[in-house]
């Protein structure tokens, strides 16, 4: 059956099983591969996207639940890739392998949207669902503070 989605401002009518996790609808059907698979059980955060502005683990979120809502993926976070979080990430050379960074950046952007000047504890709390196996956490903390300065 068809599920109507709005991804990064564009309408998509996807012929998918309504139980299909949003992640696979985005990656395999809509063809946007910036959102990553890491665990399939909402444990690692590699698949975080925004649904109506809220961070959501797309791997455990049925595509049908996203119908009619505004979905933002890493590709749509900013038109030119210069969201303050993305800029701060590059200034501090946060990524190592880069794989988890889409989810990290989406979680960080959602945090800053609701808390423009987070403390370290608030950062840790908001970002603890995002695993980075390369260990970029110290720089993620710094980059979120940097982005907070950048957007003020």
């Amino acid at each position, binding site marked *: 059956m068809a599920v109507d989605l709005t991804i990064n401002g564009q309408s998509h009518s996807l012929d998918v099983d309504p139980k299909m996790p949003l992640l696979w609808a985005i990656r*395999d059907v809509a063809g946007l591969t910036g959102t990553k698979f890491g665990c399939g*059980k909402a444990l690692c955060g590699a698949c975080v996207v925004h649904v109506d502005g809220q961070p959501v683990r797309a791997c455990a979120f049925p595509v049908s639940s996203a119908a009619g809502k505004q979905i933002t993926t890493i590709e749509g976070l900013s038109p030119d890739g210069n969201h303050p979080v993305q800029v701060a990430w590059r200034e501090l050379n946060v*990524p190592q392998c880069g794989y988890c960074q889409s989810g990290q950046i989406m979680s960080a952007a959602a945090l800053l949207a609701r808390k423009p000047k987070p403390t370290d504890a608030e950062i840790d709390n908001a970002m603890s669902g995002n695993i980075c196996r390369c260990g970029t956490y110290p720089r993620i903390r710094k980059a979120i503070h940097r982005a907070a300065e950048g957007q003020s």
Partner: protein
Amino acid sequence: MKRIEHLSRREFLKRTGQTTGGLVLALSVTAACQPSGNGDESAGAAGNFEPNVFVNVRGDGVVEIVCYRSEMGQGIRTCLPQVIADELEADWGRIELIQATGDAKYGDQNTDGSTSIRRHFDILRTAGATAREMLIAAAAIEWGVPAAECVARDHAIHHEASGRSAGFGALVATAADLEPPAEVTFKSPTDYRYIGKSMDLIDGFDMTTGRANYGIDTVLPDMLYASIERSPVLGGTVKSVDDAKARAVTGVHDVIQLPGGTSPPAFNPLTGVAVLADNTWAAAEGRAALAIEWEPGANGAYDSGTYRETLTGIAKQDGRVTLERGDVAAAFDAAESVHEAIYYAPHLSQAPMEPPAAAARMLPDGGCEVWACTQAPQAAQGTVAAVLGIEPEKVTVHVTLLGGGFGRKSKPDFVAEAAWLARETGRPVKVTWSREDDLRHGYLHSVSAQRLVAALDADGNTTALRHCTAFPSISSTFDSAATGPSSGELGLGAVDNPYAIPNLQVMAGDAPAHLRIGWLRSVCNVFHAFATCSFVDELAHKAGMDPRDHLLRLLGPARQVDPAADGAEYNNYGQPLETYPIDTGRIAAVVRKVADMAGWGRELPEGRGLGIAVHRSFLTTVGTVAEVSVNADGRLTVHELWTAVDAGLVVNPDRVIAQMEGAGIFGMSLALYGEITAKGGAVEQGNFDTYPVLRINETPSAINVHIMDVDAPPGGIGEPGVPPVAPAIANAVFAATGRRIRELPLSKSGLA
């Protein structure tokens, strides 16, 4: 100055195939200097100048640099062009990076062993310098001036006396007709422009915008998505399959049994049943609907709990003596006291954030093209060729970015799965491993038990040490007859013991493997450093000494250690000891520095402690201090880490710092949580709930890194930061609580 040999392509391949270790470097330098148009691979496109397989200067002046190493987070796609562009005097903004396919013409592409800089630095410099010298020669010809009067600077060649200059692009036509120089002179380090500078990540924009492509992101026209149910037990076979329900799932096209299951497992696909569908989700749903009866085979009896007892028993016995110095028996007879400890560390999984994934399609000529997140492009090429029964030359391996590797992606079994399924279905196929697949069917870091026994004199000096290390060998993955630790594995932290202990015996305990064993970031150094660095700390307390002072005393006077002098088979990571010595003076300097950084000796509140560990691996020495506390509930907090690293010359300091930060986190994961267990031959863990790794809320407030300023050739960077982390934390736990933990992970002891 580097001698450049002219070898024919055939001769190069022949010699490459026969070489190991240090000679590879010389031959690869030769590969870098193959003249173009000599009947082989390196003829450039018209109007371009391709002085070697790594550099192509285009007519428009853009310098294409071929990255023939895999990027998995270590930053090599940034560091490799830094070296070439520096020697070439190219502008950073006018280079284009091209990722190499798997091809023997590039020499060694195997991205493991922390080798990309340490073993390729001279190759890369030669590649850049050769291109530079040829452009200079071309300018000299065009201007009728001596080449010695011309210099390369800012992407151009200049003749100071006449004031003439020409951009690289303008010299391409003339340069392309020249023979490469017989030898080149490297730049003076004082003239480096990029080497030693923290250049920004080449892939930084792509990685922060979702544009970066990993193996799992490959999409081919008409592609099927595969999910594979594999035998829960290594060596198991399919008794029966009922795939009716799987085939009924919407989107499922086919169910195919893979042959797999070779013994030894090597890089071959495992026994399994593949479900192929329109998308990843449908394939997974179909797979969940399979009803398979497995015959577990001989490994079905494997129980990691029972095996632990077996392994510990082996470590307690005297094993094969692999190094002997002095008269150990006599020293124990004369000892004032003896101290003994058993250390244990479990299997680990690399668990890269991107699980193994690869896509493949067959070509009309019977060849095969694959896209894969592989650390070993040529092994992938060879394995795919063998599984398909075609020539390696007919297999093209496109190397994507790797979403982490840590050794897992050195094994191309998943690439061969995709290729085999592409041939069977006649359509392009992408295989994606689930997290459960990754943890249950990987190539695990080996489980180990070690016994250390020290003889002490009346002053607490260690007069003798016996170290017996027992673990299933990685060799078992490639040789069914392999019984125990290889000399290569014993050279990862066992026989290369740097301490000034007059009587030393290192023994190996043979142990069979029941799971696929493979490399994990820093390999056996993980458990050897955990045991050795912890035991040294134990000896400090036995002697009533401060651990740092004791460490320095035990390292003894500055000297160079040669394990071979004591009978060990030791290859020093493939490099001569003259160039890369085990230098206790340099190790001691790292100890002093990291202790100073951490404010060693300062007053700490009750329940807090500092622990120190130092370990040399991959030709680099890393010292780590951890500050921890344990609260009344036994909850362990690692507050801060300090790391000093002596890696000789450093190409990109920021990437070195990043690797040390990452190693701190990776080391904490394995220290606090890492454990893979098995029952009935099957791995018990399945995802990050049962195999936890460190999260940001457990990350120390700071990981402070200092790069030692040492005039020495470059050492490894990707791995050596890991080994000292676990013992530094365990030693800090002792300092904080008086509890000596001799088992990893620390969570098993009620901590964390």
